């Protein structure tokens, strides 16, 4: 049997640290899209190759940051689930102990 311990409050606090990450990362994705679009316009007519590279960079990295943002959100959900499960276990164990204590106390 796996032995483990979880400080539900502690994990919840750490999960809070993740709370704003998805929004931040999505804002970064928007900034990348806007900045690279401006750069493409400012590159000059002699930099056709650079514009094409900027276009791919813009597409790839704006979307990549969105994917990272989604993943951060999913990781936060995963921590939520773990703490919820742990709390369920905790409640189950404490209620079972309480019942057992009641039985013993009733004897």
């Amino acid at each position, binding site marked *: 049997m*796996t*032995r*483990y*311990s*979880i*400080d539900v*409050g*502690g*994990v919840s*606090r*750490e999960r809070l*640290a*993740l709370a*704003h*990450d998805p929004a*931040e*990362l999505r*804002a*970064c994705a928007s*900034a*990348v899209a*806007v*900045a*690279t679009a*401006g*750069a493409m*316009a*400012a*590159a*000059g*007519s*002699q*930099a056709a*190759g*650079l514009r*094409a*590279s*900027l276009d*791919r*960079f813009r*597409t*790839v*990295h704006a*979307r*990549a*940051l*969105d*994917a*990272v943002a*989604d*993943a*951060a*959100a*999913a*990781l936060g*959900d*995963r*921590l939520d*689930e*773990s703490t919820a499960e742990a709390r369920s276990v905790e409640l189950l164990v404490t209620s079972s102990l309480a019942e057992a204590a009641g039985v013993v106390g009733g004897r």
Partner: protein
Amino acid sequence: MSRVHEERRTGAVAGADALPTPTGRPDELHHAARTLDRAAARARATTTVAGTLGPRLRAVWTGDAASAAEAEAHQLGLRSRGVVDALTVAAHSLRAYAVGLEIARRRALALQGQWDALELEHAVALVGVTHSPDLTGALGAALRQRADEVRLTGRLRLSRAYRGVIDELETVALRSSRRLLAVSDLTVPHGSSASPSAVRAAVTGGMWFADGMEATRRSRDVALADGALLRRLLSSHAGGRTPAGEDDVAAVVARLRAHAEDPVYAQALVEEVGTDGLGRLALQAGDPSSSVSLDTVRQLLAVLGSVVITAAQQSAPAGTDPRTRARLASGSALLADDLVAGATRTVSGGASRQRAGGYWLLGQMMAGARLSGDSRPLPARLVRRAAAATATAEVAETRDADAELRHGTTIHPAGDATFASWFDRSDFGGDALHLLLTEVGDDPAEQAALLAEPLPASTVAGGALANSRGDRLTVGEHLVRRWITFEANGTQTHHDLRLETDADLTRLLPSISTATTVEAAETRARLMLEISRTSDFAMREASTTRIYDRGPAVVEQHVVEWLSAMHASVDRALGQPLDSFTRGYSADTADGQQPMLDARELSGVVAALAVDTGTGLHAREPATAYESLLRSELQRAEQAAASRLDVMPAVARLGFFDQAASAALVAVARRQDELNKAAWEGLAEAVHVVDEIRRGGPAGLVSMAQTYASGGSLRTAEEDLLIAAIRSDVELEQTELDDERRAALLAGIEALVGRASVGAAGAFTRGAGRAPTLPTAEALRQAREDEIRAAWNAVRDGGTTERLKETRPKGLPEHAISRADGTHTTSPAEAADRLTRAHPTGSALKDDVWHRSGSWVTDEIRTKGTAFVIVGGDGVKRTLIQLPGNVNGVDGRFEWIIDGDRITHQMFVRGGGINGVPIKP
């Protein structure tokens, strides 16, 4: 390229035109670079990219799950840092190009200045030539040529310089472009699509929580769209809109089929529409007024069945991320709850408002799925619960006020089939319980668990869900009851669509037949009890006597084997008084756990084995199942004797079995006699009725009606005398036959065990004493004589049966009319013994305190009770026991009436004294 070459032979050209400034806005490029740097810094400030979550988690969480979460956070940090680092590289590249562009632009401007100066110098030179004296013109021409050559040389030099500036700028641009491409290729491989899904796969692919979320989102989106479509179809017949037709349903089938094996989709769709919604859709498509073809209805059922199977799976497909796996598991649990709850609900649908129980619809969907080749199993736990709910629904259906809903639906069965079904294959018909039972595989543990599954409660079914001990029925007990009340009754089973309960039991019973676990022993005990009870009920009615007209069926053979193997438990029951019997379904013995039944319950089981033939006014031999039991017990006795072990327990068991079988056969014989007597009485009444009709006259008919309405009779005392003389006496015949068989059995035992037979007769009698007592042949002959004599006395005295009945007090059973003046001709101790061995029936089974309380004071009968022999209006002698007592502060008397081996009456009479008259205080 400058324009110098085009203008080389022409006039002056401006530097800005000859050497144009490179386009582009370095300041904006710098701004973009700064934006990218700021975005990178902002991203690096997040916990995700900084990668600080993992170590912080470690401080508050340990174990496998924590390690997994930490690894996941670490992995996401690594991948996200790669993406963010690319922003810095891009910013650097942009900045480098911006600087290059600035330099190029400055140098271009400088070259333009030099160009313009060169042009000016050329112009000045030409002016000088014009104003210089030149008589021949040759000097001027030479000077102009020289000025042109100087300018051309200058232009060429400047153009080369400009070309160098542009080349250098293009090199910077190319270098920046390559760096950008390189970092992009690090994130998404070169040549790959940069579509959102491709980028997502490249960045977070393989990270289960991220992949799962994306896949779940896609599946849910499709399910929501399909759910909306199904809801539109479900509401299409309402509000005068065009009902769903063949094309609509075919389109639904196609859409659902495309995702039917996606568990996220399946759960989301069922959640969206509900299990009731799926059922209503099936009813709507299969409605008689619908234009949807039967084949399409079957396809719809098949795909709905597959969706349900998928949604109910507890194990997610291989490769599913743990997060989605956990959500699917909880989703399947919720769906299971919904399916089980829905099994007992009735839904309606379609223009004809056909109705069907959830269990029947589930059976149809499962039939469709199986016939379409979907062989994925349903979770065993769900099958057990659904089968139990189906059993409850079946019981409730026989007790509700809905006469139209039969066997799960208002849809009429085809032809003379028992069950309605959209499928015509007999093995996939409308018998939903059988279909669900077939979902249980060959694992004996799962089969045993199925048999032990308790039926869920139902307010409609109420007390019918209780077994003989008042506990909740299990699936196994329901199957036994069903086997007897449906399957064994061949006249009600269609040839082409038979109930498969017999086959179901044949397949399932071996799973609990030999195991010595508590669970298996309890299940065997419960099944035997149900067989005992159901057969007892069945034997009371002539119409159900044929139930046993099937010879040794599989269940009976199993019961014989179980009963033969539980000798330790039987010995314990025979040695234990009923009132001290510990209620439990199993007992620990030296041979492991064995079913535990008390002597009365064991008698019922033996009775079920002993009676198997139809009605007939003759005594009969015990059934072959009982003979098989007897052979097994004899063999055991013989083995014990051969091994010089104590044979008396086996002999006592044989005595008990023999007496229990005899009691069952005599009970059947007695009922034959009652039926025969009732037939004669009915015939006599009919003669009088016909006579009244022939004589005519409204007054006569009214008088006759009043007689019957008041419980009277038109029979004369002479007719009752005749009936008493000629009615059958199968009970006596059976008793005599049983006596012969018993003597032969005892002789056989003595021969079998040889020298060990000393005391065998005593052991045999002791065992028999634990089974219901029976009147002797002599007592029966005497009772018959008394019956005839009473009838003769009635003729002689001019009395009639009707007169006796007319004086009967309200509430007093007809048989309780005493003609023996309450003479006590039996001792309280003897009466108490008979009471202990007798089976409670009628009011003796009522569970209110005024009827039940009598069971608590039977020990006092020997010392404080009084026993009477009373003769009822039917001439039969019965034993009345009265005992003074108090219930809840109310004084009165307890009383019982014993009729043969049955307690037919038990109650507390408030304020009653010891008077020899039942019921009356």
